[in-house]
Structure formats: structure tokens, C-alpha cells
């Protein structure tokens, strides 16, 4: 890249010195709280939820139950919103859920090319790569290549299905249950379920 050789600190959107977003967001917060449009305590309450309660462990519990309970798996397949609500995970960016099941024959991968739609209620806030142009651009046109960059190399015969989240349906990938996990309880199974595996950008961990 010729873009690195000169001292052009702003080329990639990274500024030298203090990040101007610090002051910008502080100014916005000051105006909004002064005007009574947002309450400081509410901001803290929102952060508390997403920093302690809503994250990929929710989704992992859904997957673990689906792996261990065929009736639940069936319910999850038929009505993911209700089946997931049964575990207590509902609401914002998970109002309309759909679970898609990986098999040896078919691997599912979820993306939002148009913005950053992501199943918050079960996975929490999306990682930066999920929201960034490279993933959003390439997951739909070069999914196998993208998977390889995540270290996921599928057998050649495995079909890939990419789900572009263009509406308010949020997709949760149910990874293939790793072999040799028959004796594990739900908690031990959930520990094998990574965030990326529920996006389709990874596989569940082997034992």
C-alpha cells in the first residue's frame, strides 16, 4: 500500500492525538441530558444490561438445550422466537427470531450487508468485524473464502447458505454438535458454543 508511506494520519479514519469522537459524544450527551431528553441513570441501566446480562452466553444456552432436547430443537426450528423466549431471551433485536441448523451437508452463515442487524437478545452486541465493510461485502459473494479466513475450512461437498438479514428477522445458527459430547450436561455443552459458531463464522469447539 502506498498509503502508508506518507504522514497522512487521517487516511484510514484514525486521527493522531485525541479521538475527536470523545468530545463529540460527550457534547451530545451533555446536550441531551441537559435538555431532559435522556436520563443519565437510564444510560447506565442500558449499559449494565449489555455488559452483564445480554451476550453470547444466552445463545449458547439455547444451542445447548437444542442439542440435548430433541423436542426443544424441534420447537426452535418451528418457532424460534417462542422457544428462545422460553429461556428468558426476548426483546430488542431479537423480536423475530429464526434458528438455522447446520448439518454435515449444509453450513449456514449470517450477515447483514445493509447495516449491522444481529440477534442482540441471544448474542449481545455485534463484534466490529461483523459491522465492517470487508465482512458485509464478502460474506455474500465469497463465503467460502471468508470462512477460511476464520479458520473454517468446510469439506468441498458442504453446501453453504448465506442469510442476509435484510428485514427484522434475526438469525441464530445452530452449529453441529461436536462428536463425543454425549455425556455432557447443558452447562458443559454451552461452553463449547462460541459466539462465532452461532453466526456461522466458526464451528462449535471440539472437546
Amino acid at each position: 500500500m502506498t498509503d502508508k508511506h506518507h504522514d497522512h494520519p487521517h487516511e484510514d479514519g484514525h486521527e493522531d492525538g485525541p479521538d475527536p469522537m470523545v468530545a463529540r459524544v460527550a457534547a451530545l450527551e451533555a446536550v441531551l441530558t441537559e435538555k431532559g431528553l435522556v436520563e443519565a441513570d437510564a444510560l447506565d441501566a442500558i449499559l449494565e444490561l449489555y455488559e452483564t446480562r445480554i451476550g453470547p452466553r444466552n445463545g449458547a444456552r439455547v444451542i445447548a438445550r437444542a442439542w440435548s432436547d430433541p423436542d426443544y430443537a424441534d420447537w426452535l426450528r418451528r418457532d424460534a422466537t417462542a422457544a428462545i423466549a422460553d429461556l428468558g431471551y426476548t426483546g430488542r433485536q431479537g423480536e423475530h427470531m429464526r434458528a438455522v441448523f447446520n448439518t454435515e451437508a449444509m453450513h449456514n452463515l449470517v450477515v447483514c450487508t445493509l447495516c449491522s442487524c444481529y440477534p442482540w437478545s441471544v448474542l449481545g452486541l455485534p463484534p466490529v468485524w461483523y459491522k465492517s465493510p470487508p465482512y458485509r461485502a464478502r460474506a455474500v459473494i465469497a463465503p467460502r473464502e471468508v470462512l477460511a479466513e476464520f479458520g473454517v475450512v468446510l469439506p468441498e461437498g458442504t453446501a453453504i447458505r448465506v442469510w442476509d438479514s435484510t428485514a427484522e428477522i434475526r438469525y441464530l445458527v445452530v452449529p453441529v454438535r461436536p462428536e463425543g459430547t454425549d455425556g455432557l450436561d447443558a452447562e458443559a455443552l454451552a461452553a463449547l458454543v462460541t459466539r462465532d459458531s452461532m453466526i456461522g463464522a466458526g464451528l462449535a469447539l471440539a472437546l
Partner: protein
Amino acid sequence: MNGPQDLGGQHGFGPVAPEPDEPRFHADWERRAMALTLAAGAMGTWSIDESRHARESLPPAVYLRASYYEIWIRALEALLVRHGFVTEAELAEGRALAPGAAPLRVLAALAVPAVISRGAPVDRAPGDVQPAFAPGDLVRTAVMHPAGHTRLPRYARGKTGVVEAVQGFHVFPDSNACGRGEAPQWLYSVVFEAAGIWGRDAEPGAALSIDAWESYLERP
């Protein structure tokens, strides 16, 4: 709109760069940005559709250079100004200068868990509107390039696919984003072979689906 947000199939952005042990936020301002966006959204003045449209309407060079929380903040500022809550001068000075529009409601801390766990479902009662398509139907997506908000990505226009599922009767973003009402429609999951979308440059053995509102679809 054929804006900077419509990234599916674009080239030139380099490899995906997952960050090992990525923190939930990369700076404190990102935490505040997330919370402010949700709290301000909870005033109920704009829909998620208007909000998305504000984000994709940022100048393309700005959108493509910004982190996602920066995009959120810039769009939030635009929405707040558009709806009369704050002024450019206030944002520049970082303090309130004059009263603005009164909010419909303000999110209280105690209400946060309930508001988040309720979310904002977008399915509506279809009444006697029947879905025009059924699973298995062959459909062709519209050729259209609207300047306003749409959720039909450019790569999926004028393409033939198969209806895989009826997903519900949902608020129509193309209308709702610009104040023309919720105008709900039947929503379908439509599947395409990658070769039908990307032609000579498709990966073999791949299929791709989108969620498409009924007015995006025609009988082929």
C-alpha cells in the same frame, strides 16, 4: 438507496479482520454512544427505519471511513436536529441553548429492562390480506434503484429465486423510513443460487437468501 451501506459484493475493503478477545467496547465513548442511541431512540420519535436511513445517508466517504458507533452518533445527531430536539449550535457548543421539541416520552432507568426485553416487534395484523406467494413459488425481484430507503440489496435486484418461507406481515421500511407510514406487507424468505446472483464469479455450491417484502417480488 444505492448508498455506501449497500456493501454486498463490493470489492476493495481487504480481508475480514476478526480481533482476538475483542472487548465489548473499544473506548468509553463507544459505551456512551450505544446507550445514547438506545435511550434517544426510546423517545419514540423515529423508527428504526428512519434511523437506518439517516445512517446510510451520511456522505459515502464519511460512512466508509467511520467506525459503526461513529456512524450511529452522526446519524443520531442528524435525527435529533431534524426533529427539532437539538440544534447544530448546541451540538457544537456541548450545551443546551434554547428549548427544543418536547419528547413523547423519556426512558427512565427503571423501565430499561422492560423496554429492552419487550423490544419493538414489527409484525402487524394482516387482517384479510392474503400472501400473494407461497413456499416453493418462483419469484423475480424488482429492478429498482430508489433514491430513498430500501432493504432490497442491489445484488438481489432483477434476480430469480424461490420463496422458502412466509415470514410474517411486517412494517415496510421503504415507506416507514420517510414518514409515509408503516404500510405493512407480507415478508418472505427468498433463496437464490449464488450463480444466479454472481454469475461467472459465484462460488460453487453456495446459496443466498434475503428477506423480501411482497412489493419487491414479481412472478417471473
